[in-house]
């Protein structure tokens, strides 16, 4: 006998407003029985990301509500359809935040979409990515079964970390019902500075700064200037600003970067290259915006897709056609056959009928 009644509050959903998990599970069982592909949608603000899914729309935006938030536990648990702006507003009231700074492309953007897309903002190299802050999820698998993976505590090594696997899986493994995220206190002080110079100069400066325990929380280069953000205790931030020099800059520029509202980030066809910080990418012409201290580089280029991808791989990273892919294009860098085989088996374990976002990440997955 298993303890199916572990969380008695969670066993029946009918009486709780915002909880649509029974209906969602029922729809999944139907779809699986008919092998009918489902295109899972939160707020729909990241529909451009990933390959096109030919499937019936499966909205989760009605499955909403904060389930638990206790600031002293540094954890928030919310249903997947809860707007992320609502969560951020609630955290801000208690002087806390989502430290991975997810990009938010609209008020309807959901926390489920944030986790499923796995996208993180400027703080990522210094604070961690979405998957570093996911403590647990409840998902519906392709059988319509509710699975609780992970939990609400930071240290937890019982069972495989299937919850981290959901971050960035683009909904291909299951439908997120709720997510538990670790939250962080907002820094006491936050300042930005900018320094003139080309990227190689900026790169060397970043390398030198990152060797030391400075409160860096952002580092991007727009082609002509390096922008640095510092967050932390007052004295540490003030000392770092004084030492780094440069000119004062606005924090607003980091917001624009985070939400991808500025410069080339709004381009119709946009590449994201994930690279070792100091990597040099040869032979690609185009406009660059370099974030994550060099680790994430945005590119607008007319060069051939294969060529861009090959250059990124040669430099030790990978390239994603973040926005503006033609339906026939690969979006993500193809995987070696040995890894793809494991992806397919994991997909089959969670979604045996193959109904969840088929092809969103890769053809055949």
């Amino acid at each position, binding site marked *: 006998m298993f303890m199916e009644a572990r969380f008695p509050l969670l066993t029946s959903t009918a009486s709780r407003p915002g909880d649509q998990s029974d209906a969602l599970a029922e729809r999944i069982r139907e779809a699986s029985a008919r092998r009918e592909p489902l295109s899972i949608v939160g707020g729909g603000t990241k529909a451009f990301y990933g390959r096109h899914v030919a499937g019936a729309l499966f909205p989760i935006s009605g499955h909403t509500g904060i389930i638990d938030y206790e600031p002293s536990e540094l954890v928030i648990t919310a249903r997947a359809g809860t707007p992320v702006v609502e969560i951020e507003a609630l955290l801000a009231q208690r002087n806390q935040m989502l430290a991975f700074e997810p990009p938010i492309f609209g008020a309807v953007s959901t926390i489920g979409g944030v986790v499923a897309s796995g996208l993180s903002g400027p703080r990522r190299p210094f604070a961690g990515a979405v998957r570093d802050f996911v403590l647990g999820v409840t998902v519906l698998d392709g059988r319509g079964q509710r699975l609780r993976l992970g939990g609400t505590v*930071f240290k937890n090594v019982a069972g495989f970390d299937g919850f981290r696997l959901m971050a960035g899986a683009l909904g291909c493994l299951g439908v997120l019902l709720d997510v538990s995220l670790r939250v962080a206190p907002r820094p006491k002080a936050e300042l930005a500075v900018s320094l003139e110079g080309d990227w190689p100069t900026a790169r060397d400066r970043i390398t030198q700064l990152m060797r030391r325990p400075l409160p860096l929380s952002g580092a991007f280069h727009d082609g002509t200037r390096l922008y640095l953000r510092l967050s932390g205790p007052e004295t*540490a931030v003030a000392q770092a600003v004084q030492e780094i020099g440069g000119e004062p800059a606005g924090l607003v520029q980091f917001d624009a970067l985070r939400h991808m509202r500025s410069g080339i980030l709004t381009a119709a066809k946009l590449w994201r290259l994930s690279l070792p910080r100091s990597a040099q990418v040869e032979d690609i012409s185009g406009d660059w915006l370099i974030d994550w201290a060099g680790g994430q580089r945005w590119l607008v280029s007319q060069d051939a897709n294969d060529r861009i991808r090959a250059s990124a791989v040669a430099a030790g990273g990978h390239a994603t056609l973040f926005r503006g892919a033609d339906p026939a294009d690969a979006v993500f860098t193809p995987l070696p056959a040995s890894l793809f085989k494991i992806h397919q088996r994991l997909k089959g374990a969670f979604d045996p009928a193959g109904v969840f976002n088929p092809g969103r990440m890769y053809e055949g997955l």
Partner: protein
Amino acid sequence: MLDQFDQALDPTFATYNRAVLIARLKAILPADGLLTTPEAMRVYECDGLAAYRGLPGLVALPRNPEQVRGILMTCADLEVPVVARGAGTGLSGGALPFPGCVLLSLSRFNRILEIDADARVARVQPGVRNLAISEAVAPYGLFYAPDPSSQIACSIGGNVAENAGGVHCLKYGLTVHNIQKLDMVTLDGDVLTLGSDSLDAPGFDLMALMTGSEGLLGVVTEVTVKLLPQPVHAQVLLAAFAEVSTGGAAVAAIIAAGVIPAGLEMMDHLALTAAESHAHAGYPVDAAAILLCELDGSPEDVAQELQRVADICEASGATEVRVARDAAERARFWAGRKGAFPAMGRLAPDYYCIDGTIPRRRLPDVLEEIARMSAAAGLPVANVFHAGDGNLHPLILYDANAPGQMEQAEALGGAILELCVSVGGTITGEHGVGREKINQMCAQFSRAEIEIFAAMKAAFDPRGLLNPGKAIPTLARCAEFGAMHVHGGAVPFAHLDRL
């Protein structure tokens, strides 16, 4: 005892021809790379959970990834179970040999391959000791953050298998947050690279899945770890409390105030008095509980935050608050904490260390319940607590020579873990499920969840040969042992509020 594998409740495998296996492995391994006699294999019969013992079929000691691949492909071909082992310091029996298995020791993978201080990474083999990494990168002003208590001996490969934490993980994260790339070999003989030299990799986050997978998915042959700059300054504060609950309230208040200490540890009266008589740390032995709070950063900020923490502790009812006067006193404060486990030897011939995590706010309830259970079982329990992250280490004191006490301690430990689950926590914070907590998995997870874990394992290891009988219970085992957790349909610990 759980070191006995059960044909009805654990995975089973057909018998194989040992002479054929030895002949094929000899062709792969150097002359000193294979141990086959009971005398030679004795040292591998247990890990840090020494109460669980069993001899493997043989021991393989490869020197390079190609040999690991050869061993795994041979074992896959002959359907021989494989148990990978790092330094053998694990506390959950994760490296306990399965009967007839090939015990695959990674101890010869002991080289630091590359330190790139500018990229703040080191590429190391899995047998490298945790502390050896921080020692090697110290000249560059860097360190490797996860620091489990066993860091002087434990290996980085074992840390990956267990997703090891340590005293400083509240601020600096677990192993999963501090590694960037893994090379591993599967039983199919595939050599996989998970993660990358950049901050992410395409596809599912298999590196995160591999971390903490307890040797069930593959064998790690190389790890790229992230390094951090050493903090300029660190200081530690000791606060004493007349009641455990006020100490618990102070912990919640510190975190709620936005302070993220580098370390935040709590010890109850029994633990702190034993530690004091062992290490002479200067602990107030009349306190019901003490809190150790370490802060790091710039000297000015540390001084300011120390004052805030001291104020919070006093407001929460601390009877005494002390800041270490110098580095020597700071080292003594920590020596007491780090020596708390061995100090138990002063109180009882044996102790059994439990490893549950609970939401911090449930600490007073849970400690009270543990005290009740301890009294009922007639076995004293001392509590050491990674308070910042809710990871509780009750130490059950017993005498293995007294008939039945070992089993009683095991049963009490199991009951404490179920208590942790019932308040919304977990049966293991950092030691892993291993063999030890295989039955409690049935208390924490539903049948569907156990089935999905088994399917995830099968995605990497379709034949189920890697570390069988560990971490993920069979459905048969849960049918047998899950039953004891629900008495007459009643939810256990019904008097406690649910999550």
